[in-house]
């Protein structure tokens, strides 16, 4: 697909977007969804938080920083 002049999409990303667009949704799913164990987060079968802010706070206070759930 041609992109208009002035497009800021990096060429390598554009190539990836176009390749993905050619794949059926079922295939995109297979490439996209992965599963790895996430410490703490995966250790309870059910959690519910009164507010989204409570959930964010809980993530910051309980999850390892490297999981990336903390705010910057």
């Amino acid at each position, binding site marked *: 697909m041609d992109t208009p002049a002035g497009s800021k999409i990096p060429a390598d*990303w*554009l190539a990836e977007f176009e390749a993905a667009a050619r794949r059926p949704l079922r295939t995109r799913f297979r490439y996209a969804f992965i599963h790895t164990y996430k410490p703490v987060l995966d250790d309870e079968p059910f959690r*519910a938080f009164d507010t989204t802010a409570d959930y964010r706070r809980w993530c910051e206070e309980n999850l390892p920083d490297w999981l990336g759930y903390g705010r910057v």
Partner: protein
Amino acid sequence: MAAFEYRQAEEIRDAFARRGVHYLFIGKSGAILLGFPDTTQDADLFVEKSPENGRSIVAALRDLGFTLDDGQAAQIEGGKDFVQLKNGPFDLDLVFAPDGIERFADAWRRRVEIEGFPVCHLDDIIASKEATGRAKDRDSLPRLRSFREYWLQRHGLP
């Protein structure tokens, strides 16, 4: 727990339709449905917050094989903002009040349908990720914004 599969997304779509659940795929799983090539671990659903929808969600989740006791069901029905489920055939996050999106009805009006899956518009997915302020969202935003530009061009939108 294995990775989330297309077949399971279809099961959500079909069970939620049977029970009349009002929901949208959001987050990276929503972006992936729209064609965004990236990886993620589980599905995030933006669900309308109302007692009726809560009851429908609980019924649909039980249909799908989630084991919810009465206390957990009551929390889903009773208006929690965020529910994390790892007690079923796949992991699922129910987001009743995502950051960066004012009302479910607004996001519903802007939704995109992909093979019968209701998905938040990329503008809402991006707004929600911008509002979280999380490290993992900050890292993915530049590529997601580029994908938005690509997606709008591809669909002939300004």
